[in-house]
């Protein structure tokens, strides 16, 4: 397998081009824009430090997404005691102080298993394809497909319920 030393310029270029997408996904994960920014910054600093371990068996962007998602998840866990976003799937979703009108899809998102939730974020907020999502979440492509189908059905149902 080819192993390359990743040029900093490629990482910087990716960061500058996709910063808003990274920020949006990270913010969705940690539920706070400032913390989301911090997660993105911290994730990219890790990418810089770990770039020697990058193997071009997967695309750079997918690899970076994995780091960003994991960093954001780590930050969310660190805040778990203070924050109310559920760590695992199931009930107990919090509205995080949002207005009641925002709650429909937010609650549904919150109640999705974490993998489905992250897949939704990466598909809808970052416009990643299944392969890239699979790499970012470290799962098989088939799992992404099934996860998104399941999440999609759940979201459709939630919207229909809200509309009713």
């Amino acid at each position, binding site marked *: 397998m080819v192993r390359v030393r990743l*040029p900093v310029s490629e990482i*910087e270029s990716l960061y*500058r081009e996709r910063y808003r997408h990274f920020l949006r996904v990270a913010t969705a994960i940690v539920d706070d*824009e400032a913390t989301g920014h911090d997660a993105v910054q911290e994730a990219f600093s890790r990418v*810089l430090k770990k770039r020697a371990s990058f193997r*071009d068996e997967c695309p750079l962007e997918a690899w970076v997404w994995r780091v960003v998602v994991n960093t954001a998840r780590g930050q969310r866990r660190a805040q778990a005691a203070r924050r109310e976003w559920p760590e695992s799937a199931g009930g107990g979703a919090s509205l995080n102080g949002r207005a009641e009108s925002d709650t429909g899809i937010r609650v549904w998102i919150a109640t999705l298993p974490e993998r489905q939730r992250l897949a939704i974020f990466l598909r809808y907020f970052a416009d990643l394809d299944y392969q890239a999502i699979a790499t970012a979440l470290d799962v098989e492509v088939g799992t992404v*497909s099934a996860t998104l189908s399941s999440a*999609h059905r759940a*979201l459709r149902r939630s919207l229909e319920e809200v509309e009713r």
Partner: protein
Amino acid sequence: MIDLDPQIVSELDRTFPPPSGGRADWQDIVDRAAGRRLRMVPSRRLVAISTAVIVTAALVAVMTPVGAAVVRGLDGFAAWISGEPGQPASSAEQQAFQHANERSWSGFAPGTELRRLIQTSLNGTSYTLYGFRSGNQLCLRLVASGAVSATSTHCAPLQALQTAKEPALVVAADEPFSSTNAPPNDEGLVPEVTSASFGIVSDGVTQVLLRADDGSHDALVASNAFLYVADHPQPGVLVRSVQAVAGDGSNVALPFQSAPGMLDMPQPPKGTPQGPAQVDLRVSGGTIGWFDAREPRGKPLPAELRQYPLFAHDRYVFGRVIQPDPQSADRIAVVLIDGFREPEKGAKVAGLCLMMGSGEHATGTCNSLSRLFKLGPLDIELSGSGSDQFSLLEGLASDDVAQIKLFLASGDTVDVPLTDNVFLVRVGRAAYPIRLVAYDTQQRVIDIRTYESDGMTSRAPRQASASVRELFRVSAADGTTAIVRAGDPAGGYRCYSIIYGTGTQAGGCPPWPLTDKITEGNPLLLISANTAGNDVFLGGQVPDQVASVTVTFTDGAVANAKTEDGFVVYPIPAAELANGRTLLALRAYDRSGAQIAQRGFGIRR
């Protein structure tokens, strides 16, 4: 794949609106990676700002061994990245640039904005340094007007700025400016009126210091650029190193290779080639499907190229202009011709020409089509001008190649733009040794080319060039003189030069003695025809066993060529060139008088 459901997108956007704030801050990431900055969560923002000075100091200590405060980040080059260094050029200057640009088949991107950076005057000549960004090229254009009138444009790839660890970039060094009316001096050379060195600097750089053979010189620094114009430089005086200096006096050496003098080439850069060293799969017999099928890829050959004698009349078969990198003005014309004369055998065969155009410049080479991909799936040309700090690697890749990567000595890797089997990449002369690696679709390494340097270097020791002296002169009918100089062999090299009037020059410090490997078994291989005014000379190096050389014309006349100490020079009589062309045969003899080589020449003036 599930499509993005518009209703879900709308709901998600409403529930998780796109970030309202947040600002990309690359320097913060670099600082974090180096462990030099407090994590900048919002509540700590003030703390982070207040520690900025400390952070900078920490950076300084790590980045430069002397603890200098010269650091760089892309932000320092923001003016260049945005294409807006300095001030806008006047509308007349912009129009002149645009006009020259439009006339070229490989002009810079339409709408490229010329920026005025530095202006200075010297001995009745005004030198104005302009800058512009064209796609991923950052270019400097020095215009001399007055006693000397000339324009010189050199470009650096944006990637060089992005990967550079230093706060400045030398783009050209010792670019010569001569008066076209000046006569050659006693050594046959037209002396330079000035020579110029220039480059790009980041915001924090206040001084650029050039160390040359005649001492240290301060460059003018303004508008994120530097310019140094040497007044009547003595022959052989070159810039040897360049330093960028910050406001507090700290400094850092910039990556730099001296311009090559004919007898004074720099040593190859120190370093170890990076990247794969083993080929995974050997492929041979490569082809380019679209070219063989005459598919109209890229663009047609422009009229100005069709007018080249080489492509004129019935010799032209097929040609297309390919732009390997959509972000660059560089274009390469790939042209198939009939009747290409092989240099070695003289036979007429199908030839393949690559014409490389960048801005107003165009250069090219032709070769026998049958030699394409003989050495592997990459067919590479390495070129560059002496003053340019960036060399060009361009060429063709067979259909076997899916990707090409360039590995620099620094460990940085560059994806080489590759379109329709044509590739081109600029490489800093100081970034060698390099490896160009070709991969197939399965990421297997199928070709590796390692280059110690850009070819404008020599491992010849100093004494090889220091001992160079005149050996002999030969005058031609029209008054032009060829001057042969050579030094003593040293360390396996021998330096020499042959100057043909005010025309071509040949020479360098090649390996010595000349072996059969170098001459490919023909002691007359290194003899070439050289035009100087109305005269044409045959001249070059011959191995030590060659004692004499004769020239035989078609009418049977035989003349002796001046042969001395390993060099041959012969001026072709004007009568033999009365029709502008002649055929002749060279014969070499050893000391016993036995003929040891023969070579035919067809010469056209």
